[in-house]
């Protein structure tokens, strides 16, 4: 019992305190609830699509095929094994290009974000290159690298490079100055300071940059597969568009969106883990 001298209205109940309430609205109510809720809008859109094509017939088959048509186009390609090949090669290109671009973006972004000399020297050039459209790289790469796998991966790497570069570059300039000073005061500088204070502090920004870069890598894939390819979702997209196969075109779009979303989700998991460690 408490040892108060002048207790005023203090009643001390015996009951042990209840465990703390957990407040995870929404997602914790149902197992997998988060997934379900995220599916609401896509399902609605699918329904709309179906209504607009198969039911009301607002659009003709070639303008906008019904969802089933897209599905059966996919089934056809799946059965011939082509679908898997398209997806596999595209995935490989995107992942490779993304990895290369992200690593370079991190390195150059860190360098320019930390060294004002390097920044003054290189930032204008990087900024100008950032403004070269993906489609404009195609003829240049064709000329300089040729039409093999390299040029495709390079193009995707270019796409992935800039978001990562911009994110880390700008985030590094806004790391809490007090923490950086503390790090320096304890004898950290250069790479050690970067690894100890600055990089961890910008982890959220870097991941936002990485996710944009991954999305951009998928965007650049289509341009990359204009570079003399005969496989890949980007190729499927361009070819179907050229041949007027709107069902396959939509299939390619849907698959690109799905694969993009899938890789993004995986990156998101990594992000969550990193944020647990760093933020």
């Amino acid at each position: 019992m408490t040892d108060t001298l002048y207790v005023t209205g203090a009643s001390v109940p015996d009951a042990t305190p209840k465990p703390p309430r957990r407040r995870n609205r929404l997602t914790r109510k149902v197992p997998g609830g988060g997934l379900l809720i995220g599916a609401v809008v896509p399902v609605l859109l699918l329904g709309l699509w179906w209504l607009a094509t198969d039911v009301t017939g607002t659009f003709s088959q070639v303008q906008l095929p019904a969802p089933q048509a897209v599905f059966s186009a996919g089934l056809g390609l799946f059965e011939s094994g082509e679908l898997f090949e398209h997806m596999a090669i595209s995935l490989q290109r995107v992942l490779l290009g993304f990895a290369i671009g992200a690593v370079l973006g991190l390195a150059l972004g860190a360098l320019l974000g930390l060294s004002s000399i390097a920044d003054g020297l290189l930032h204008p050039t990087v900024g100008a290159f950032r403004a070269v459209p993906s489609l404009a790289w195609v003829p240049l790469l064709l000329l300089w690298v040729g039409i093999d796998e390299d040029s495709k991966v390079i193009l995707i790497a270019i796409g992935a490079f800039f978001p990562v570069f911009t994110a880390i570059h700008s985030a590094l300039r806004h790391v809490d100055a007090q923490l950086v000073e503390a790090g320096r005061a304890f004898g950290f500088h250069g790479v050690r300071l970067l690894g100890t204070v600055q990089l961890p502090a910008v982890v959220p920004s870097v991941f936002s940059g990485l996710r944009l870069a991954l999305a951009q890598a998928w965007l650049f894939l289509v341009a990359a597969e204009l570079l003399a390819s005969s496989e890949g979702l980007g190729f499927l997209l361009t070819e179907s568009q050229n041949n007027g196969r709107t069902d396959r075109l939509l299939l390619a779009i849907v698959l690109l969106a799905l694969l993009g979303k899938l890789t993004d989700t995986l990156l998101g998991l990594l992000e969550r883990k990193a944020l647990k460690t760093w933020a």
Partner: protein
Amino acid sequence: GSDGGEDEQLETLNIDFATYNPLSLIILENGWLEEELEELDVDVKWVQSQGSNVANENLRAENIHVGSTAGSAALLNRAVGADTHTIMIENQPEWSALVINEDSDIESVEDLEGASIAATPATDPYFFMARSLQEAGLSVDDVEIQALQHADGRQALANGDVDAWAGLDPIMAGAEADGAELLYRNVDFNTYSVVNATGDFVENHPDIAQIVVNVYEQAREWATENPEGTAEILAEYAGIEPEIAEAVITERTNFDIDPVPGDDVYAAMEAAGPFFVENGDVDSQDDVDEALESLFHPEFAENREATDAEGTEDAADEADIEETEE
């Protein structure tokens, strides 16, 4: 990309295939070229061309030795300075026409005055449209041209965004199947499907160029005898319905021509030339004339001799198509 060495033995022949060049598909499908080049110890690498512009680009960058284009595109490429030569004619297609919607009240090319037309600049359909207009006493300035990629042009027509479309097969065949109508067709306004090679290749590897032409000759003979088989292959490579492929092959493709680049194709190209200058794509008519004079290398087609390669069942799966590493 380039292998500029002059007396060097060619290790790999880079050659394109395209859905607008059905013979290339037949050769690829059967593995004839690999077979014929085996004894010379030359490998074959296949690269797909999505359109004449892509083939031209790859020819300019010397990423491919041999590439197929429309005749007008071959001329344009040389006129802007590319060192390429037309070595043979693949077929005389009727791949371009002016397309309108079923319910359109346009009845003749003359009615197009003031109309909006979708076309892809610097392609055969574009020149087809320009020549058709000219023939009807109009010029491209009398219509409103919407620069669109081929497939998008069809879409724009279907939406009613444009009154007519300078169409290209096989998209055009698909549109027809969906009810679109051909307003005007004229096989002579199409500028042939031709096969080109880089100057370097023609000069330093004439033996291989000859073999390419010979294999094409074998394919031409096969295609003439097997239109159904050709349509089947086209349908597979282009990812289109077999009926549409059949229509394209039987109705709008003519393999029964003289492969030697000669007067007919010269005339067709000559007619397209002025439009390059008019559009500003080429700076002067002199450039066009000069290009036309030096474009043809007819000797290979003249000396052609159909090969008798046997081919293999799964040649296409074995073939070195650009990215499949085997």
